[in-house]
C-alpha cells in the first residue's frame, strides 16, 4: 500500500510526528523544558528598544518565500515584534513579497496589535505587499530602509539571493540587524553582514523562546529527540558500514 521507495520515509515521518506529539502532551501536563539561550532572539528586545529611544521605525520582513516552514517561523517572531512595537509605541514597517504570505502576514500583525490592546495602531500602509518579483521586492525594501532610516532591521524567514542586498542596505544606514533563515546558501551572507544571526533551526524555537508556550516547548523537546535519533541512526549506520554491512542503508532506501 505504501508507495515504493517511500516506505522508510513514511515511518521516519510517523516516528517524528509521534515524538513531537508525545513531547507536547507531556509538556502540557507539566514536564519542564528550557530553551537554551539564542542570542539573536535576545537581541530583539534591544533592537526595538533602541528604535524607541531614537524615535525611528523598526523594519521586519519574513522574506521572499511563500508559505513555507521558514516563513511560519518568521511570522512567529513577527507576532512578538509587533507586540513589542505596540508596547513601546514604535512604528513597525513590515514588507512582504509573496501574495499568499501577505494574506497571512497582515492577519498576524493585525491580530498582534489587537492582542496588545492597541488595534488602532495597526496601519495597513505599514504592512506592505511589495512585489512577488524577487528583485522588485529587493529594490522596494532597500528603498524603504534607506528612506525611512530605520533603527532596527529584522529579517527572519525564507530568503534567497536578495538576502545580502537587504543586509548591506541595512548596514549602510547603521541599523542594528537581526536575521535568520534556514536556507543554507543564504545564512553565510547574514552571518557576514548582520549583527545577530538566528542560525537555521534555531528559528523554530521562536514560540518557545518568547511566549514560553508549553505546546512550543514540548514540540521543541520533540525536535531534539528526533535530532538525537538522527545522530544515533548515523552512528549505527556508520558502524555497520565499517563492519561491512549496508543493511541499515538499504532499509533507509526502501
Amino acid at each position, binding site marked *: 500500500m*505504501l508507495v515504493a521507495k517511500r516506505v522508510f*520515509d513514511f515511518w521516519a515521518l510517523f516516528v517524528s510526528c509521534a515524538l513531537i506529539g508525545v513531547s507536547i502532551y507531556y509538556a502540557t501536563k507539566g514536564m519542564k523544558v528550557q530553551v537554551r539561550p539564542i542570542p539573536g532572539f535576545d537581541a530583539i528586545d534591544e533592537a526595538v528598544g533602541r528604535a524607541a529611544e531614537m524615535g525611528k521605525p523598526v523594519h521586519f520582513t519574513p522574506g521572499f518565500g*511563500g508559505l*513555507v516552514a521558514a516563513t511560519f517561523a518568521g511570522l512567529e517572531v513577527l507576532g512578538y515584534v509587533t507586540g513589542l512595537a505596540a508596547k513601546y509605541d514604535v512604528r513597525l514597517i513590515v514588507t512582504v513579497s509573496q501574495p499568499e504570505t501577505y494574506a497571512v502576514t497582515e492577519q498576524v500583525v493585525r491580530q498582534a496589535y489587537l492582542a496588545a490592546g492597541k488595534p488602532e495602531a495597526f496601519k495597513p500602509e505599514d504592512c506592505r*505587499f511589495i512585489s512577488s518579483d524577487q528583485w522588485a521586492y529587493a529594490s522596494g525594501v532597500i528603498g524603504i530602509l534607506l528612506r525611512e532610516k530605520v533603527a532596527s532591521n529584522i529579517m527572519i524567514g525564507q530568503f534567497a539571493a536578495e538576502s545580502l542586498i537587504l543586509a548591506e542596505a541595512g*548596514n549602510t544606514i547603521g541599523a542594528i540587524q537581526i536575521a535568520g533563515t534556514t536556507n543554507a546558501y543564504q545564512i*553565510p551572507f547574514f552571518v557576514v553582514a548582520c549583527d545577530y544571526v538566528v542560525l537555521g533551526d534555531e528559528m*523554530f524555537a521562536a514560540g518557545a523562546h518568547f511566549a514560553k508556550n508549553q505546546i512550543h516547548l514540548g*514540540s521543541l523537546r520533540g525536535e531534539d529527540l528526533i535530532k538525537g535519533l538522527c545522530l544515533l541512526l548515523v552512528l549505527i549506520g556508520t558502524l555497520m558500514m565499517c563492519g561491512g554491512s549496508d543493511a541499515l542503508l538499504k532499509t533507509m532506501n526502501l
Partner: protein
Amino acid sequence: MFIRKMLPTIIAFVCGTAVTVAYFFDIKSVQSIAQDIMQWRSVIAIFALGLGAVNIIMVHMRNLQRDRLKNVYSLALLAMFCITILVGLGWGQSSKGYRFIFDYINVPTGSAIFSLLAFYIGTAAYRAFRVKNAEAAILLVTGCIVMLGRVPLGVQILPIAPKLTDWIMVVLNVGGQRGVMVAGAVGFIAVSLRIIAGLERRVYGVE
C-alpha cells in the same frame, strides 16, 4: 463559534493530512482528493494576489492624497502598475507593449538589482572577514581560499588553492551544510505538524 474556530482547524487538518497521505500511500481516492486540494490551493493563492494589489493601491493613493499629487514616485508606481495591467489584459501577453515592459523594463532592471550583489559582497567580506576570534578566522580562511581557488589569477597567487578548494567544497563543507539542513528539516516537520494539528491557530487568526 463553529465557523470561527472549529471549521478553520478542520480544514487545515484535512488538507494537510490528505496531501501527506496521498504522497506516501497508493490510495487512488485520496490521491485524487489531494490533487484537487492542490489545484484549489493555487486558485485561492491567486486571490491573495488581489489583496496585495489592494494594498499597493491603498498605500500609494494615500501618499498621493497626503502630498497632493506632488509625490511623483507614487504616481509613477501607480501609473506603471495600471498601464502594465491594462496592456497585459487588454492586448495580451504577446502584444508589443507588454513585451516592451517585460523585456526592457522588468528584466534589465531586475538584473541590475541582482548585480548590485557584486559590489555588496566585497564590502560585506571586507567588514566581516577579520581575525577577531576562531569562528571569524575559519570563515575568513575558507572564504578566501575558495575565492582564490575559483579563478585562474587566484591560482597563480596561491597555487595550492584549487586543490584546497576542491577539498573544502567536497569534504569540509559537507558536514556543516548537512547539520543545518537536517536540523532545519526537523524544524519544518514540527511547525507543519503543529499547523495541521491545529496547535498554531494564531497564524490564521484564531486565538
